[in-house]
């Protein structure tokens, strides 16, 4: 089957195809899901090498669960975010002593050197600020404001109520604003 032919197939259908032995479906899922889970893990962990490991482990769990996947019960992407969140939690518990200086540089892709550098600096400052948040707040803010998930989906990922998600994101944003307020000038943001 041509690779492009799978572009319009849903994640859930691709997973069923893979469970039936379709290796092209696995390639399509790999290309589609890996950047998302890697980006999320990178932001939560602040460590690219560890994020790589988490992404691979999360995808491995997806391959293993494929034969038992029940269509209509959950979205593959939601399930993946949940697995990544749990894996990140495990890793963060093991390394409480990480320093902010170890946060990797974000990867650039925007045109215009000055604008690009400013975007990079802001993204880096946000990553550093996110690292100061309690783990659940950080995860909720990333899922809501960077990954773009809706609150009910975040509630499913984090296994909490929608109200708890709202509370976490509100408190997280307040904390981020406080941390980032002192860096406005350095980041090219006007005061008024």
């Amino acid at each position, binding site marked *: 089957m041509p690779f492009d032919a799978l572009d319009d197939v849903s994640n859930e259908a691709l997973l069923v195809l893979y469970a039936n032995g379709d290796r092209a479906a696995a390639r399509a899922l790999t290309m589609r899901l890996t*950047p998302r889970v*890697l980006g999320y893990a990178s932001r939560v962990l602040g460590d690219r090498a560890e994020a790589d490991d988490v992404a691979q482990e999360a995808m*491995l769990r997806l*391959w293993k669960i494929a034969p038992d996947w029940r269509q209509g019960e959950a979205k593959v992407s939601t399930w993946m975010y949940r697995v990544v969140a749990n894996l990140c939690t495990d890793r963060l518990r093991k390394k409480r002593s990480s320093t902010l200086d170890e946060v990797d540089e974000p990867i650039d892709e925007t045109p215009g050197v000055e604008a690009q550098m400013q975007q990079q600096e802001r*993204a880096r400052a946000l*990553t550093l600020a996110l690292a100061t948040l309690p783990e659940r707040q950080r995860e909720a803010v990333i899922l809501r404001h960077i990954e773009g998930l809706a609150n009910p989906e975040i509630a499913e990922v984090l296994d909490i109520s929608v109200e708890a998600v709202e509370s976490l994101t509100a408190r997280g944003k307040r904390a981020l*604003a406080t941390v980032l307020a002192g860096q406005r000038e350095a980041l090219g943001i006007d005061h008024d």
Partner: protein
Amino acid sequence: MTDHDDFDLELFFDAAQTQTADASTDLLLRIAGDADAILDARDTPVGSTPIAKVGFLAGLVAMIGGWSAVAGVSTAAVAGLWFGIMAPTGVSALTNGYLTDTSETAYVSDYLPGFDLTDAGE
């Protein structure tokens, strides 16, 4: 939180959204390799695992009941050898009686000193 703070944060979130985490080719290959390995393992029939070849000695040992049986056979062989070398006196006398062709005849009383021929005749 003021509206101004909200606006500031949106700038940061927008910046973060433009920074994509490009997966390395190595990572993508590892993940695809895992997917293939899972399928390969699943597609391998359970009975297709090659059976280890049994050597002649191992087959022989198994045939007589395993290594414990081999130990028993060995013990019996050593015991037999021992009896052969260190034959009891009584046995020597008996075998000499049968195997030697001399004038000295062995009598029952030689082996059974308490046996009385007169009693036997009664």
